[in-house]
């Protein structure tokens, strides 16, 4: 039978590649993110970021005599693929997984680890979500084995609302989001928060557009125009954001754009191309290249030196994650992730970006200051620009972590 012959060969191959040998003195970190296909751009930056951070740790003598190595696993943005890649990583000795892109893979990984760590107590594995935005991952789908180092979208919306409180010129608000969980989340949270913080603001439009399916946003732009909005809050990202801004630029729509994902790859370029006037596109995020914090700008400089001048360090969460992980490892003198996660519960820390941060024990959600910035021309060596567009972020507001406190529904199952 051919199929049997094939199967043997195939699986033999699988093993050959699957379980690669690891040196004794290296601690391997598995990054599970899209490394092929359209979403790979973000995944690759994530991989570079973690390899950069691991390099820093190694330069400072590694952790407890062990060098860090970051290995990428391609989950193709697919939750099921995420599970199998996690399995592969753990098999090859990985005990710390990191991941950021897409909420489905995130939830899948939480789910996988909850069961896996229970079923295989000897191979318990920790997982850092270094940029995930889906609230579910720290609410109904939360996991003891996950720590989320980025603010989830509910927190960001809350923060934005409290920022807009101080923005008198925002009177007519238009909500423009993708028709998927995060988009719907933004829509809902914005409405409730604005009603509470700025009841005077009138929500003149509320759009949910199918994800990555719209070719021409001009009709939507016409609609926004017709609504007479002065401010648009959008969770659009990547292609959708680019097309939206482009159409707006063409039609000469002049509003303030408050975005959640404008630091994403290609988006600064898109802003630049759109022909929109400077400092009309805003983002709210854990950091930006031109923060007041000297320490962070230093890190940004080193990062760009390694990865390329155009690429900002777009995952500040990973910096905190690596800092806190190595600190815990050194304090406890161990790399046993079970001990480490236990020690991190409720831990307080000082983010390099500035301010205070802490890991909430109930849901392992990290709280830290968020920054509102607008993009516009940056003079040479007066700061970093984005993607070599000559435009960069300028801070216009900071939101204290206390103003991002959202309750959690997480019922965490802690191992006995």
């Amino acid at each position, binding site marked *: 039978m051919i199929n049997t012959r094939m199967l043997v060969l195939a699986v033999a191959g699988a093993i050959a590649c699957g379980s690669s040998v690891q040196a004794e003195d290296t601690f391997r970190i598995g990054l599970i993110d899209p490394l092929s296909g359209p979403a790979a751009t973000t995944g690759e930056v994530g991989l570079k970021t973690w390899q950069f951070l691991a390099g820093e740790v190694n330069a400072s003598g590694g952790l407890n005599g062990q060098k860090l190595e970051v290995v990428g696993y391609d989950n193709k943005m697919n939750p099921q693929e995420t599970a199998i890649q996690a399995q592969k990583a753990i098999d090859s000795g990985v005990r710390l997984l990191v991941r950021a892109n897409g909420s489905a893979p995130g939830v899948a990984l939480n789910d996988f680890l909850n069961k896996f760590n229970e079923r295989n107590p000897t191979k318990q594995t920790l997982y850092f979500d270094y940029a995930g935005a889906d609230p579910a991952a720290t609410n109904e789908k939360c996991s003891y084995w996950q720590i989320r180092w980025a603010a989830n979208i509910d927190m960001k919306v809350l923060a934005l609302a409290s920022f807009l409180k101080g923005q008198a010129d925002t009177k007519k608000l238009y909500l423009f989001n993708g028709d998927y969980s995060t988009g719907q989340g933004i829509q809902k949270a914005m409405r409730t928060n604005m009603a509470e913080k700025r009841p005077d603001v009138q929500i003149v439009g509320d759009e949910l557009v199918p994800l990555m399916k719209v070719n021409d946003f001009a*009709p939507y732009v016409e609609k926004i125009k*017709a609504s007479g909005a002065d401010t648009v809050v959008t969770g659009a990202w990547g292609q959708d954001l680019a097309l939206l801004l482009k159409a707006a630029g063409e039609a000469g729509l002049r509003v303030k754009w408050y975005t959640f994902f404008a630091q994403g790859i290609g988006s600064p370029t898109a802003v630049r191309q759109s022909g929109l006037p400077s400092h009309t596109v805003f983002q709210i995020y854990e950091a930006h290249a031109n923060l007041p914090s000297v320490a962070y700008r230093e890190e940004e400089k080193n990062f760009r030196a390694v990865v390329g001048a155009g690429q900002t360090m777009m995952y500040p969460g990973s910096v905190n994650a690596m800092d806190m992980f190595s600190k815990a490892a050194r304090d406890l003198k161990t790399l046993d992730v079970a001990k480490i996660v236990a020690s991190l519960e409720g831990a307080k820390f000082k983010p390099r970006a500035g301010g205070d941060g802490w890991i909430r024990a109930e849901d392992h959600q990290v709280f830290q200051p968020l920054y509102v910035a607008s993009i516009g021309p940056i003079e040479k060596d007066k700061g970093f620009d984005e993607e070599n567009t000559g435009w960069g972020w300028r801070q216009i507001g900071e939101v204290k972590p206390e103003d991002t406190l959202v309750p959690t529904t997480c019922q965490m199952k802690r191992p006995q």
Partner: protein
Amino acid sequence: MLQLVTFSILNGLLYGMLLFLLASGLTLIFSMMGVLNIAHASFYMLGAYFGFQIAKEIGFWPALLIAPLAVGLIGALIERYGLRRVHAYGHVAELLFTFGLAFIIEELVQMIWGRVPVDYRIPAGLNTTAFTLFNTSYPTFRVFILLIAVAVFGLLMLLVTKTRVGLIVRAALTQPRMVGMLGHDVPRIFMLVFGLGCALAGLAGVIAGPVFVTQPSMAGVFGPILFVVIVVGGLGSLAGALIASLLIGLVQTFAVALNVSIGTVMGAVGISSPPLLLDELWPVTIAQIAPVVPYLLMVLLLIFRPTGLLGRRM
């Protein structure tokens, strides 16, 4: 409101004409060779990237000429050395060949230009506003696209109706075998038509690239809608393709403009209470499902009138 309608029409026309640029080539190829070229949108993408590269090196205007030719040439070569040998194995094999081709082209584009959108800008000369209606400016470049599309449509019609080649093509639409019998080199005609179709797609890419985003996923975004167009228009009918393109362009833009929910629509036709399990559809607005509408149209049409609006064969 009037403003919304006017600009919806304008944008609908623009989008429709772009669709037509692609659909015309696709439908020609299909009706002549019986090949449903799944990779057609990939040639549109190639056009955009070539356009971007050439515009960067030499300038936009040369790109407008060279890029489509290059894409057409590639298309012809693929037909000659790929599709033609597969032809012997029948239509399924041909379909699958183009299916695999789409895969490869997307990967090639990523390999060469990366996965990030490239900075393909509207040429300075055309980056102005053509006219301003109800204090909304309409960009010159969109007008330019419209003009090009209309011009191409005109030329295509001339080619098909007035020239000898067109005569053969039209004959081949209905009587492919007979044309061969009449001693025409049918394979060569196929090659030319395939090249022409790809060139048209390439042209669409060159002019659409700056308006939309030029990135590896652009083929995947445009591809499916194309089949809707040629099916709705009727396989093998240029006029049909035009009508369908405009129809879908307008349907999509207006669906966006509407703020009606399915519930209200259903209520209007007398189905007030949602059927089991579908009740969460009721609050969904037409704008939300705008991009789904064409596929509904396509399936219904295929089931009840597979010849499409103006289709001849099948």
